[in-house]
Structure formats: structure tokens, C-alpha cells
């Protein structure tokens, strides 16, 4: 039976593509429904094609405001977590010191903790300290949970780095500062970039921790959450689609550039 044989041989591919479809189906729906013109307040049923939402992406009250808050928080959280996380990663890989085990656990635990636990306990702290919930408490929380991911990403990169490279730099008349700036940092850069990118995505998309510690500040995920109760504007889908396309485009362009660069030099 050639058909059965063919199926057998390609079973993994078929199953894998099924999973890929499962992963992408919601994005297809989001995109398609960004061209919908729903009847009621909810955008769950297809009515008819319309470009209205794409023409007026900020046509919904408060949505673009929340988007801007989310972006600001994501940028600052990325910056903070990347700087602090990179410092920790370097210390962990390059130095021997006391309490190493304790510090490793402290970095691992936030990743092994359900978000809702961190969210609730952080809120307890803020309530006890009488802190004003809002932009700053969200930022603090985001830096906290992004930190561990940056440490992990940078650590992996720095660990795989040949220590001889830094020795070579020192041998070639680079002092400690020059060695760090000219050799260590550029080589660790992909790890740092990966950590930063992950931080940005995590922070921008975070809902649970933010929801607990936001007070009256509304981030974009919180806006979406609220709209699931009140009515989902089509513009949400427009933003979702645009973000998806931007991400794909960004990656494709950067891949194209590296490809071309390699071709030119080869």
C-alpha cells in the first residue's frame, strides 16, 4: 500500500504541520476579523467585509492610550531588566563567590512560580507599604519577572564564550575596560539581545501580574480584558494583526540583511 507507506514516512511532518496550524489558526481568525463589521458590541461572528477599523485604528476611546502605556512600560522594563540581568549573568559566569547556590535559586524561582502567586504577593507588599498603584508599580513588577529570563539568556551565551578571546584581547594591549567594550560585550550581544527581546515580549503581553498591580492604570492587555466583558472593538484585531505582521517583517528583514552580508563577504 503506497499510500499507507507514504503516510507512515511522513507522519511526523503531518503531525507537526497540524500543530503549526493549531498555533496559527487564532492569528488567522484575528486577521480575518480585523476586516469585519460586526453587528453588536462583540466581534465574534462574521458579518461583512469592511476596512473601517484599519482606517481608524485609534477610533476606540482609550485603546491607543493603553497601547502607548504598554509600550512605555515594555521599553523601560526591557532596559532595566537587561542591564540588571546582564550584570548578574556576568557575575555568575565569571566570578567565584559565596552564596552562589542561593543566588541561583533566587533567579530560578520567579520562573518556576505561577504568575498569580507573584502577582498576589507583590500586591500584598505594595498594600502594606501603602504604595500608589500605577505606572511605577507595574514597571517594578515587570522588571522583576523579566530579570530571570535575561539572566538565563545572557548566561548561556557568556558561558559558551571562549575565555581565550578575552585573554587574546588583553594580550593585544587592551586593558580591562577596552577588553570588555571591544570583545566581551560584542560577543555577548546576541545573548543580551535575545534577553531584551524576550523581556519586551513578556512585558508587553503581561496580563496577570499587571492586572493585580496596576491600580487604575490600563495597559493594552488590560484594555483587551476589559473589552471582553464590555464589547470587543474591531480595532483590537487591527492592533493584533499589525503586531504580528511587524514581528514577521522585522525578522524577515533582519534575516535578509544577514544573508546578504554573508553572501557579499563569501
Amino acid at each position, binding site marked *: 500500500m503506497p499510500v499507507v507507506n507514504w503516510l507512515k514516512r511522513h507522519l*511526523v*511532518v503531518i*503531525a*507537526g504541520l497540524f*500543530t*503549526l496550524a*493549531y*498555533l*496559527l489558526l487564532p*492569528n488567522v*481568525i*484575528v486577521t480575518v*476579523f480585523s476586516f469585519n463589521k460586526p453587528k453588536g458590541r462583540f466581534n*465574534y*461572528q462574521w458579518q461583512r467585509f469592511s476596512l473601517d477599523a484599519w482606517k481608524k485604528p485609534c477610533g476606540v476611546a482609550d485603546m491607543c492610550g493603553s497601547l502607548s502605556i504598554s509600550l512605555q512600560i515594555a521599553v523601560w522594563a526591557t532596559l532595566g531588566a537587561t542591564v*540588571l*540581568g546582564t*550584570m*548578574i549573568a556576568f*557575575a555568575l*559566569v565569571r*566570578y*567565584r*563567590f559565596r552564596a552562589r547556590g542561593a*543566588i541561583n535559586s533566587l533567579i*530560578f*524561582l*520567579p*520562573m*518556576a512560580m*505561577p*504568575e*498569580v*502567586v507573584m502577582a*498576589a*504577593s*507583590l500586591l*500584598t*507588599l505594595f*498594600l*502594606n507599604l501603602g504604595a500608589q498603584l500605577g505606572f511605577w508599580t507595574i514597571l*517594578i513588577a515587570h522588571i*522583576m519577572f523579566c*530579570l*530571570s529570563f535575561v539572566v538565563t539568556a545572557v548566561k548561556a551565551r557568556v558561558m559558551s564564550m571562549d575565555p*581565550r578571546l578575552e585573554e587574546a584581547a588583553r594580550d593585544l594591549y587592551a586593558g580591562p575596560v577596552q577588553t570588555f567594550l571591544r570583545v566581551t560585550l560584542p560577543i555577548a550581544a546576541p545573548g543580551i539581545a535575545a534577553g531584551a527581546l524576550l523581556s519586551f*515580549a513578556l512585558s508587553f*503581553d503581561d*496580563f*496577570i501580574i499587571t492586572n*493585580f498591580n496596576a491600580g487604575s492604570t490600563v495597559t493594552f492587555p488590560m484594555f*483587551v*480584558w476589559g473589552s*471582553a466583558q464590555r464589547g470587543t472593538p474591531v480595532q483590537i*484585531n487591527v*492592533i*493584533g494583526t499589525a503586531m*504580528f505582521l*511587524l514581528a*514577521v517583517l522585522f525578522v524577515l528583514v533582519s534575516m535578509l540583511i544577514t544573508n546578504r552580508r554573508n553572501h557579499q563577504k563569501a
Partner: protein
Amino acid sequence: MSTLTEAPPPLAPAEPAAEAPRKRGRFTPYWLLLPGILWLIVFFALPLVYQASTSVQTGSLEEGYKVTWHFATYWDALSEYWPQFLRSLCYAAGATVLCLLLGYPLAYLIAFRAGRWRNLIMILVIAPFFTSFLIRTLAWKTILADNGPIVHALNSLHVLDLTNWLGWTAGDRVLATPLAVVCGLTYNFLPFMILPLYTSLERIDGRLHEAAGDLYAKPWTTFRKVTFPLSMPGVVSGTLLTFIPAAGDYVNSELLGSTDTRMIGNVIQTQFLRILDYPTAAALSFILMAAILAMVTIYIRRSGTEDLV
């Protein structure tokens, strides 16, 4: 008394020239660690202490709370909310198993079979991250809609009869049932399963497959005896990265489920943000943390993998 000398094995212990962590400044590591670790202590560890203390307080919102070592809160919380606890663990376990079953073929496909499509598939796995997960979860409302094609298909294939009988769905609906919630959880945490799986699969030397084939292993045997054991680190970290957040999640239950699918995350959220019963919420959160940490520790010990992520 003679042999050709090519490269004699080391006589003494290997030269410790390339010892990994080197000492330079004595205090440099502490300065590097200080800000980040302080951040984690103040905003991660300290809150847990506060939470622990809150959980044994009594009082009211108006009069304020005092630590009275009222451990009964734990007992009360457990006896009232054990169904939600159990449900959370069951849903999370179900989603984790589904993620593994769905994620493994895709990770395998990317690692060994994708060829020049590898990068594209990788991008397609990661890119959905950039569309807010809430928006994507809402899309499942459309996909699983009562009059949608999927429900129709399941109905005509009598799959729904089976799931109804199992108690996973009710009537002609998928939305607002456990199946929808587990489906959403699986969807949301699938990339967290795929990426570690892919990382550990990609490290496997392709020649090992050939060697296994050469040694009379059929493809399936090769997978069971060579590929799968070697991908264990990925399986372990993938299941943890799926199970932990799934157990604490309340978004999927809220958006895709009903009051009958409430998970412990929903309860904590409501207690904390709506009912404002802080001791109960803190106790629940603490139990959840303890339960997950205990399970994770046992799981890591048993699977024998210490390095994660």
C-alpha cells in the same frame, strides 16, 4: 620495550589553566550582583514573606489586619476551594500532556525534517507571541462558536457525545466547557513546550540516528531508544514551563469557560481584587505555590535533570 609515541595521555591532572570562574577584583562580583539581586529580594522574596504573614492575619478591611497566627484560614480555604485546586491541577496536567503530544512532532519536524523551511517555521512559532495572547484567546471564542464549523464537525462525527459522556463538554457546546479551557491552555503554552524541545533535539547529532539504524533499530525503536531519551532535558523543562503557568492561569477559564470551570487562579484573583479577603487569598496563593514547588522538586529529582531552561 618500545612503542611509538604519538600523544601520551595526561600524567598529572589536566592543567587548570582554563579554570572557568577567575578572580579579578574581590568585590567586583558583589557590585555586579547587588542591584539585580536586591531587586529580586525586595520585589520577589520579600512579598512572599508579606504574603505568608498576611495569610495568618485576622481582621477586616475597615479595622485593619493583625497577625494572630490564625492557621485555620488555610484549613478553611482548602476545604472550601479544594475542587478548584483539583481542577487547576487536572486542567494543567491535561494541557501539559496535550502540549507534549502536539509539540513534540513540530519540534522534531523543525529540528530534523524542515530543511530550508526551518527558519520560516521557527518564525511562525514565535511570531504569534507578538499578538497579545488575550486577543488570540478571544479568537478561540470564534473558532469554537456554537454554530461554527468545528462544533458542527465534532457533532456530526459524534465526538461530542463521547466528550459529553466523559464530562468534558455539555450539550452541543464546546465553549464554556472544560474542553474549551484545556484547549485554550494548551494553545497558550504550546510554544513554551516547543522551544525547549527544539533546543534539546537540535543538539542531537544526526549521525546517532544513522548509527541506530545501522545497528538494526527500526525508526520507531530509534526514536524510543535514542532520540527521546536524549531530548529528556527539553521534555522536562518544556513540561515545567507549561504546567506551572497553566496551573496558575485564570485567563482561559474566564474567557473560554464558565463558573463550572473556575480554577484556583480565578479564586485568588476574585478574593484579592473583588472580595478583598486578603488572608484567604494569601493562604490560597501560598498553598498553590507550595504545591507547585513540591511537585516541581519531586519531578526534577525523579527525571534526574538538574539544569533547566
